[in-house]
């Protein structure tokens, strides 16, 4: 870790001013996008699911992802007195009936729906801001202030973060809380006192509550604790016990927060009372499984019922391979192991990719170590683990957003180019130009950031040659279509091939439109 010199004079003003300016700009860009887009496919279901948690006290709807984001999004909407229609909650017994409930919700609220979704989106924007701030803080503490600002700029103006951060969705929130949890854990590694233990535990719990992928942190934290202590004199006797107990406390506090988020619904239910639909969990804990023969299925599970059910449903989605995935003009059932790597190359701005390369190359070219290896392991390991975990699920690879939890770690790691660049004017200019190019490229397509593809991939127009689905069109442009129709009254006989559950007739109030 590099030593942080207390800021003096002018620098103690410009740094916080830059941080606040970045946060305000990011928030404004996200709000601008939030009020111009119609509800996307998943949002249609997310918001009523969140309302159902508050109003019905049940967490069945949209259980494939934990409820934190939906709970937060629904909070301001509750005060706007939405019309709700819960008939489908009990009448339809398919596993993903939240989309039917979402469709009913849109129908029940008609013209008011857009305003309700906007309120829900507003409530989700602080998650992106948190990610931005943690990128700054962690980057600053590892590589210095300029590196922190670089990481913050890459996150704040990343088109994928701008595109998805303005929606009611778990992806950006999950990424932001994953990096917050890892940052909290990093701080705990350096000062394992009670306040840091508690803080790390709460952040860990919130990360678990935001996205299922973050469950990998349960394995990652002990591993990081072992690695980061490997070369030090490992604490002996009482100290070792204290450290181990402290780590256990983090995991337990995390579990407590997770269960509290679900209102302790179904906590302690033994595995034998579950009916698993995925092959993986059925083999582990179903009838005639290994778990049952060992008697493990009678043990009460310290997890909420719908959290486990959600993992089971999600796992089944990845296993059945009945969903068609698309990559580079080829559609097939099942996915590709290199899908996310390819998506990273075409969906991230060229400037960002260049900074990643500079961060890899510059320190070795100038024979300089940017930061102690332990600090970098804390960033590299989560980034790689999230990427590998998602890439290993080759049965279903339709969305680049699944690897968002890796992005903040990559952006912070980009900061390793900065201390080296400070010693060479050419390198400093190169890094600055790359970051500026990344920001300009992203803002050039705003507010259509969700459809961003870099210039090498042919921009948004060239996007369909590479990826489809939420990578380019998620049903977000119905309001733009309405605006276009208003500006072109001569257009007749328009038919809409609409991806999603939002009925164009509801949003556009244009009779000739049909789904």
């Amino acid at each position: 870790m590099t030593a942080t010199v207390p800021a003096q004079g002018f620098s103690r003003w410009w740094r916080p001013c830059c941080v606040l300016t970045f946060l305000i700009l990011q928030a404004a860009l996200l709000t601008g996008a939030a009020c111009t887009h119609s509800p996307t496919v998943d949002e249609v279901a997310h918001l009523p699911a969140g309302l159902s948690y508050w109003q019905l006290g049940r967490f069945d709807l949209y259980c494939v992802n934990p409820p934190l984001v939906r709970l937060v999004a629904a909070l301001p909407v509750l005060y706007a007195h939405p019309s709700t229609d819960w008939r489908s909650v009990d009448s339809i017994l398919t596993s993903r009936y939240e989309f039917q409930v979402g469709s009913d919700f849109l129908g029940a609220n008609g013209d008011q729906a857009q305003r309700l979704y906007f309120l829900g989106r507003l409530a989700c924007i602080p998650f992106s801001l948190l990610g931005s701030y943690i990128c700054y803080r962690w980057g600053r503490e590892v590589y210095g202030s300029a590196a922190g600002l670089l990481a913050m700029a890459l996150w704040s103006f990343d088109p994928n973060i701008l595109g998805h951060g303005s929606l009611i969705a778990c992806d950006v929130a999950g990424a932001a809380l994953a990096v917050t949890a890892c940052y909290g854990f990093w701080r705990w590694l350096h000062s394992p006192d009670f306040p840091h233990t508690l803080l790390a535990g709460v952040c860990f719990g919130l990360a678990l509550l935001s996205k299922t992928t973050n469950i990998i942190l349960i394995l990652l934290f002990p591993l990081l604790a072992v690695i980061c202590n490997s070369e030090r004199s490992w604490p002996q006797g009482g100290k070792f016990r204290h450290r181990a107990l402290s780590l256990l406390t983090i995991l337990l506090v995390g579990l407590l927060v997770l269960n509290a988020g679900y209102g302790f619904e179904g906590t302690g239910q033994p595995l034998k009372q579950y009916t698993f639909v995925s092959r993986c969990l059925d083999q582990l804990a179903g009838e005639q499984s290994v778990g049952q023969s060992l008697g493990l299925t009678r043990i009460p599970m310290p997890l909420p019922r719908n959290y486990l059910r959600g993992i089971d449903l999600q796992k089944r989605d990845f296993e059945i391979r009945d969903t068609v995935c698309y990559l580079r003009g080829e559609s097939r059932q099942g996915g590709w192991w290199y899908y996310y790597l390819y998506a990273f190359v075409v969906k991230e701005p060229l400037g960002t990719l260049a900074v990643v390369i500079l961060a890899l190359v510059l320190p070795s070219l100038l024979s300089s170590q940017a930061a102690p290896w332990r600090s970098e392991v804390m960033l590299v390991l989560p980034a790689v683990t999230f990427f590998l975990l998602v890439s290993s699920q080759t049965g279903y690879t339709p969305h680049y957003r699944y690897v968002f939890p890796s992005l903040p770690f990559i952006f912070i790691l980009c900061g390793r180019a900065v201390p080296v660049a400070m010693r060479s004017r050419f390198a400093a200019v190169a890094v600055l130009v790359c970051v500026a190019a990344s920001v300009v490229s992203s803002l050039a397509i705003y507010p259509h950031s969700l459809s961003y593809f870099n210039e090498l991939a042919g921009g948004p127009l060239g996007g369909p040659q590479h990826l489809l689905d939420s990578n380019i069109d998620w049903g977000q442009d119905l309001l733009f279509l309405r605006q276009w129709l208003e500006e072109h009254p001569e257009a007749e006989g328009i038919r809409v091939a609409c991806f999603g559950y939002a009925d164009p007739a509801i949003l556009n109030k244009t009779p000739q439109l049909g789904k």
Partner: protein
Amino acid sequence: MLSGCAMSAIASPSSPGYIRALRARLRLLAGLRQVAQCCLGLVFLWSSLAKWHQPYDFLRAVYGYSLVGPQVGLWVAIMVPWAEFITGLALITGIAKHGALALSTLLLALFCSAQGSALVRGLQVPCGCFNGATELITPVHFGFTGSLLIISAVLLWNESHRDGSSIIDRPAEGAGPDTSGLNVGEP
């Protein structure tokens, strides 16, 4: 005589009594500063939440001032509540304090100028402060914003003249003060 001695002992700048009294006074001032900063933060938070409650009313208020065009007005209406929210949060938590004070002074100066200009032009427009479209701008609003501006400017001036190692918050030996305003310390 005795009380005279005591008085002179207290009055002497090097005497422990004088330093104690000075410390108590400085602590009081620091406390007042904290309270003023928190109050300012709360006003900003309250104002931002009120604007989000009725975003279109605030947009109407921005247009009412007739200072910017429709497109810029829209961005002002989007950005101002977030600027208030983030500044308010930073003032209350003390994160990025220097930036927050600079930003709050700038925001209040802008509000003051806009309100003053509306009053001079005799515009009967909603204030846009807390109650959206219902409350028309009056000299009282201008006075309120002006006093907040003075408080913010005094806090800013005070902060810029602190060297981070005053008599009451001088750090222990070997510990460097975090004067960055971001509360970031090396773990």
